């Protein structure tokens, strides 16, 4: 038997064993060291990012969307705080064994349902599924209602704040202002055009997540980037005139049972759009913003301008000295056959002077005058007046209208173009074209957004021709003229009526009973300040369909308000009547 070894000998390992253990331990340290080098050296960024993601939360600080204002600072669009009322169904409890407490709970439940505009049954239905921790009870609640709901102190009921665009003026300005989608991005109108400026820039704040998973502020200034609020946009629109134009348009459309109507009022001196409205309109605060009436038809819809082109084609003839205002034109006693087609007037006028061709709105007279000028001169002048070209207002959906190349015109196209057929334009183009007659022959660039710098006008006609045309246009509002209903008491106004047949989309050609009635005018004649164009689409024929009848009173009503509110000096010959205490022609121009 071996002798028992001493304690030291017993525990002492052999040299080989010691080396194995040492190598093993060194190996382990080496692995740990390598791992630490890997983590600290190569995976540092990734791990730090992950750590930040777990502990920190980056929250968006939303900017306030800019306001849209009219030229006088009246509010047209604003972002307002609204609340969503949320419920944690597991925490909401309306039951108690104690009858007194139960009565109180019942009362609270009734109050909650009433504030949420829900029936008790609907409220119960929403809270039925106890697993749902974030049931939305109602969206878009006003702040006052939210306060009342939270004051009920019902456990499990909370609120979330969101911002919703609010349009206090509703229909009259809806087409200009447009609206935003549920994501807060502009979808139509100025909201869409100026979305970038209105939206501002988001800010950010880094918050740390504590043990209760509640985000808490980190005490470092680098962790916050304040949001930049959107810029306010000031429009050139005058809300008072916009409302007047809308109301007058509504009356005309309803009176003549038309499909729709549009109106544009320009400041002739600056080219600013003071009013641009369409009826019917829509409610931009509503949810179902669909349908044809969303479009701003004054800039998106084209129609044949008709007789409103006659003063322009006459201006070409006067400018080229092809005629004088006293040149006699034989308009005949019935339809005028030209190039195998008939050109008709509403009444036979016989032989009339050039100046009366516009006054009585003779198609035959206009066609005969145009025979004295070349197609290139006529088409070039139309282009100079802005036809076939966008106005530069930059409104979403604006179209340029169609003005075919004069080289493709046949003789009949040339004649028809002289009285506004065979081409099309928007209402705003028509209004802009008439700024030439209000500015001594210069075409005014138009604008919808208030800017400090004024734009340069382009000369289109000589001042002499412009004055001649203006005098002729004034005669249109005489008793014998087609636009007598457009007169404004105490003021001299000028303008041109237009009555165009609509294209029959089913059978082709022109419809026999579908018309568009227009009136474009300016005033006061002594120093034109405003230009207004009105269009009434498809009135009931038997109720009236002439442009002067439909749109003339709208012009008269809005212009009289514009003269009054802008303190325009009266220049009308009726001033003598006023001095003699005679009543004017208020009834004639009544809407």
């Amino acid at each position, binding site marked *: 038997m071996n002798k028992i070894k001493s304690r030291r000998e017993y525990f002492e390992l052999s040299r080989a064993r010691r080396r194995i253990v040492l190598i093993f331990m060194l190996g382990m340290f080496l692995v740990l060291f390598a791992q630490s080098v890997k983590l600290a050296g190569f995976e540092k960024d990734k791990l730090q990012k992950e750590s930040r993601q777990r502990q920190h939360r980056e929250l968006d600080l939303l900017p306030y969307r800019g306001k849209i204002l009219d030229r006088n600072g*009246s*509010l047209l669009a*604003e972002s*307002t*705080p609204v609340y969503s009322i949320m419920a944690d169904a597991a925490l909401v409890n309306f039951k108690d064994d104690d009858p007194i407490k139960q009565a109180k709970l019942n009362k609270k439940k009734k109050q909650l349902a009433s504030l949420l505009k829900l029936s008790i049954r609907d409220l119960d239905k929403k809270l039925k599924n106890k697993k749902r921790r974030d049931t939305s009870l109602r969206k878009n609640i006003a702040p006052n209602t939210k306060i009342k709901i939270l004051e009920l102190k019902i456990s499990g009921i909370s609120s979330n704040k969101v911002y919703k665009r*609010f349009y206090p003026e509703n229909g009259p300005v809806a087409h200009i202002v447009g609206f935003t989608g549920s994501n807060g991005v502009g979808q139509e109108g100025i909201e869409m055009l100026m979305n970038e400026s209105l939206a501002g820039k988001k800010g950010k704040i880094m918050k740390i997540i504590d043990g209760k998973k509640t985000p808490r502020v980190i*005490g470092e200034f680098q962790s*916050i980037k304040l949001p930049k609020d959107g810029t306010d946009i000031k429009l050139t629109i005058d809300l008072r005139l916009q409302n007047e134009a809308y109301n007058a348009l509504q009356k005309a459309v309803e009176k003549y049972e038309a499909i729709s109507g549009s109106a544009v009022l320009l400041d002739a001196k600056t080219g600013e759009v003071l009013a641009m409205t369409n009826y019917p309109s829509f409610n931009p605060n509503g949810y179902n913003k669909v349908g044809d009436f969303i479009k701003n038809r004054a800039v998106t819809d084209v129609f044949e301008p008709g007789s409103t082109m006659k003063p322009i084609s006459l201006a070409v003839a006067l400018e080229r000295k092809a005629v004088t205002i006293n040149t006699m034109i034989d308009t005949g006693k019935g339809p005028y056959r030209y190039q195998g087609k008939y050109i008709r007037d509403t009444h036979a006028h016989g032989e009339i002077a050039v100046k009366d061709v516009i006054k009585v709105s003779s198609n035959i007279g206009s066609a005969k005058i145009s025979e004295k000028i070349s197609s290139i001169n006529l088409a070039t002048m139309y282009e100079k007046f802005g036809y076939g070209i966008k106005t530069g207002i930059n409104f979403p959906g604006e179209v340029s209208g169609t003005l075919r190349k004069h080289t493709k015109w046949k003789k009949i196209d040339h004649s028809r173009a002289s009285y506004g057929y065979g081409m099309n334009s928007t209402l705003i183009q028509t209004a802009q074209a008439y700024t030439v007659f209000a500015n001594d022959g210069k075409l005014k660039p138009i604008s919808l957004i208030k800017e400090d710098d004024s734009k340069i006008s382009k000369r289109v006609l000589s001042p002499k021709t412009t004055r001649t045309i203006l005098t002729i246009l004034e005669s249109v509002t005489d008793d014998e003229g087609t636009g007598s209903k457009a007169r404004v008491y105490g003021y001299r106004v000028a303008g041109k009526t237009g009555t165009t047949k609509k294209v029959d989309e089913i059978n082709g050609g022109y419809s026999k009973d579908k018309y568009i009635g227009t009136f474009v005018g300016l005033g006061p004649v002594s120093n034109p300040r405003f230009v207004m164009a009105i269009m009434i689409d498809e009135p009931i024929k038997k109720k009236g369909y002439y442009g002067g009848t439909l749109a003339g009173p709208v012009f008269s009503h809005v212009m009289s308000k514009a003269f009054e509110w802008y303190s325009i*000096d009266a220049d009308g010959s009726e001033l003598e009547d*006023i001095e003699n205490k005679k009543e004017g022609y208020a009834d004639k121009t009544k809407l």
Partner: protein
Amino acid sequence: MKLNLILFVVLIVCALTTVNFKHLTRNNFAELDAQSKETLELKDQQTMLRIEESSESRIEIIEKTAKHKLNMHIPTQKEKKFIIR
């Protein structure tokens, strides 16, 4: 030895100052956060007041007040007076 002692004291003072400033920064930051929230609340209130103002200053309301409370009316053609310069 003396130098070491001085450096040690300086170190302690620096450490305490750092801690204090960190604390003050956190306080200021929390205040900034609170102020930002208050600004937002005030902006919301301002918005609501502006909307109220815009709805109260509508032409229809002004006309209604003028007509019923102040007994005003739109002048007839006979009542209108034009100043001829």
